[in-house]
Every structure is written in C-alpha cells, then in structure tokens.
C-alpha cells in the first residue's frame, strides 16, 4: 500500500505550551483511521497543521508527496470542529461555492444527500440550527472526491440518529484510493468503522495500531482499551 500522509517529527508549541511533541506516523491509502485522545490532547492541532491552518514549530506533514500547501489542499477535504459556513448564503449558494473552488466536488451527490436529510437547498444558513449546519458542512466535505478526508469531531454536535447517518455517509463515500482520519473522543460510536487507530495523549503519540491487532492482542474493544490507556 502506498503512503498517503506522512507526519515527520511534528512539534507545535503555543508559547511555552507544547501541543504536539515530535509526532511521527504514516497513513496508507484506503484506511479509516481514528485519531483518538482526550480533550486537549492535540488531535485538532494535528489536523489543523495538515490543513495549513497552523504553522508547525518544527517538522512537516507530507501529503501524497507534497508539503502542505495549495497543492495538498486540492487533495484534502476538511471538516473543522466549528462552523465555517458563510451565514448569509443559502445552502445552494454554498454548494455553488464549493463547486467553484474544488474540481473534485460532486454537486449531484451533495443535492442527493441534502434531500435524504430533508434539508432545503433554498434555506438560508443563518436560519438553520447548529446541528443542521454541521450536517450541511459534512455533506459539503463528503461530496468531494478527495484523496484524504480530515474530519475533526464529525459526530460531536449531532443527535444519535444523525450519527449513524454520518458514519454511513463516511463509509459509503470513501474509496480504496482515499483515506479518512476521524478525530474524536466518542470512540464507541465510531469503533465499528475504523481500520486503524492513533492514540494521542498530552501532545505525545502513545500508539499507532490496526483495530484488528488491538482486538487480537489485547482482547479488548477499542473503547475499553482507550479507557485503560487514558485512565485518569
């Protein structure tokens, strides 16, 4: 399998606080990876660096052979933990926006998902609830045929019914050439879809492993093993 993302000795400091310390790992194509850790462990920091939203103190992230920049942004579909939508736009205008800037954006797929979730394309974003906005954002992100999907807490703010739909959307929309990295602390909800896990604690890499290996060697679910590793 070819390497899609390589994290080379990434360190990120905010003043004296070290959010990430010398992180190294690789992600292959065709995998769904759980980036797992408690709140404040550095998951979002890593994802932001991979998207070029944070500048690392040292080290670099290589995506498909390129350092993070304009070229890698064409390959990465990013779902941030906050709403970045232009509130004054309609949902359909936001779809047009994505379509204008991303060559790999599939408009039909987006409209199909909107219909299935009962969201009107004519609705103004400012009139939508926080949860619905998050769904619109996920639809936009998953309607791209990207190489890598970086999803920061994709199920954090939605109801359990929507969580199933979101996870289903993630599984059905990625293919063997792309990978999905899901950052979350709600492990039991996503455990079923993961191929690999990366545990991060206080900015340090604790573990990278396939889900299968953990189940075989530890004879535990990922959720149970996570609770053991991160016991307070």
């Amino acid at each position: 399998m070819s390497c899609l993302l390589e994290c080379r000795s990434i360190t990120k400091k905010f003043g004296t606080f070290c959010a990430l310390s010398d992180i190294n790992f690789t992600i292959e194509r065709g995998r769904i990876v759980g980036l797992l850790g408690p709140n404040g462990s550095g998951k979002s920091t890593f994802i932001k660096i991979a998207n070029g939203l944070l500048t690392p103190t040292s080290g670099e992230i290589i995506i498909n052979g390129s350092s993070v920049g304009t070229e890698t942004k064409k390959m990465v579909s990013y779902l941030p933990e906050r709403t970045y939508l232009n509130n004054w736009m309609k949902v359909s205008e936001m779809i047009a926006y994505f379509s204008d800037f991303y060559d790999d954006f599939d408009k039909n797929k987006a409209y199909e998902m909107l219909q299935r979730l009962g969201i009107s394309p004519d609705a103004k974003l400012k009139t939508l609830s926080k949860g619905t906005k998050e769904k619109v954002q996920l639809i936009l992100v998953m309607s791209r045929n990207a190489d890598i999907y970086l999803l920061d807490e994709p199920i954090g703010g939605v109801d359990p019914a929507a969580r199933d739909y979101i996870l289903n959307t993630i599984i059905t929309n990625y293919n063997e050439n792309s990978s999905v990295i899901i950052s979350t602390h709600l492990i039991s909800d996503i455990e079923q879809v993961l191929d690999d896990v990366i545990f991060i604690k206080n900015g340090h890499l604790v573990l990278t492993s396939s889900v299968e290996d953990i189940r075989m060697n530890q004879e535990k679910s990922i959720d149970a093993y996570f609770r053991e590793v991160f016991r307070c």
Partner: protein
Amino acid sequence: MLGKVFKYDFKATVRYFVPMYVILAVLTVFNKLFMELVPYNNKNYVATSFKTAFLVFYIISLVCVFLLTYVFLTIHFYKRMTGDEAYLTFTLPIKITTQINAKVYIAAFWSFITSLVVGISFLILAAGHGIIDFFGKICSLIQSYQYSGSIIIFIILFILACILSMFYSFLMIYAAISVGHLFGKYRIIGAVGAYMGFYTILQVISILIMSVSGFFRYSNYRNDFDFLRFFNGYMFYSLVFSTIVTVIYYIITVYVFGKKLNLE
C-alpha cells in the same frame, strides 16, 4: 481563481454597500427637493427647519458613508482571514497572494464606487445652481495661471495619489490585522497597536524627509516662485514613498498569512 474569489468577496460585501448607497440617494433626493422648493429667505419656519434637518442628515450621512466603507471592508477582511470563515478561506486550494489580492481589489473597488456615488450626489444637489459656470471658472483660472504646465502635472499627480490611496489605506489596515494575528488571543489589541505603530513610524519618517528636503523652507523663496512646481516635486516623492510603503504592507500581509498562520 482571482475572479472567483473577487466574485464571492463582492457578494459578501454588496449587501452592506447597496443599502448604504440607497440611504444616501434618498437623502440626496430629499435635500434636492427642499433646496428647490424652499428658497433661502423663506419665512416658513417648519419648511426651513425640515430643510436644515435634512441638510444636517445629509452631511452626517456623507461622513458615515466614507467611515462605513472602511468599517465594512475591515470587518470583511477580519472575518475572512482570522474569524471562523478563515477555516474555509485557508483550506481552499488558492494561493495566499490570490486571496489577498482579491481583498485589496474589492476594497479599491468599493472605495471608488463610494467616491463616485458621493460625487454624483453632489452633482445632483448642485445641478441648476451654476455648477457649469463653476467648472468653467475653474478651467479659465487654470488657463490664466502663470505656470499652467504645473497645474496639469498637479492634476495627474493628484489622480495618481487618489488611486494609490485606495490601495495604501486598506493595505495599512490589512497589514495591521495580520500583525495582530501574531498576538494569538490578543489579536484585536495587537492589530490596533500595529496600526498605531505604523501610523507613528510613517509620521516620523515623513517629517524627517520633509525637514531634510527643505519643504518647510519654501516661504524663503521669491514672490514669483512657482509654488505649485515645488509642491508637485514634493507630491511626486510622496507618491514614490507611499508606493514603497504600500508594497511593504502587502509583503507583511502575505508573509504573516502565508508563513505564520495560526488559527487557534
């Protein structure tokens, strides 16, 4: 890509500017009506009061139109480049220079439209009150001036200064916001501090240049001295200086958002 970014920047800002221009247009029409219907020496107290009130509103709205042009564009830049929307701005596969160029062009565009709208508003108010005579008098004054060549150069330099100021003033704000971004949680205070810092440094450098170049000694010259020619020389060097400063602001903005971006 620049066209696409400009298109969405235009869409994001047009909803602020159109209502503002509509309010100015309404005030212009009302003022014009009162100017035409209520003569200067009118004894009707109510009509004269309304006329005065609308004139006051009009003058206030003129100040507001220019002020709000800066406010709207500053807020737009701040939200797009450092707010929640920045998460989308900086994950689009677009070069940072394209993003910033679009913001500079949109600012120059709305500055120009604001000046145009205000100019048209003035012309509407002045129409029928000897405005053609007024321009005629200015033209003949220019022709009769001893050093008419200097006036033409002055007009050219003045137009160039107006064009440059549209870029200069907004890039100063953008550079201040970008420097403020380096202060993390204190980015608004940082931006205000950077703006004040830029302003102070420029004032000091300008006064130094004016002192060294002898600008303050112009009164020592003879009576028939062509002041305008002297002033044009000063204006030319100020234009060169302002262009250099504008380029520096642009470089600061591109550098910070390109190399030091930290959306915490």
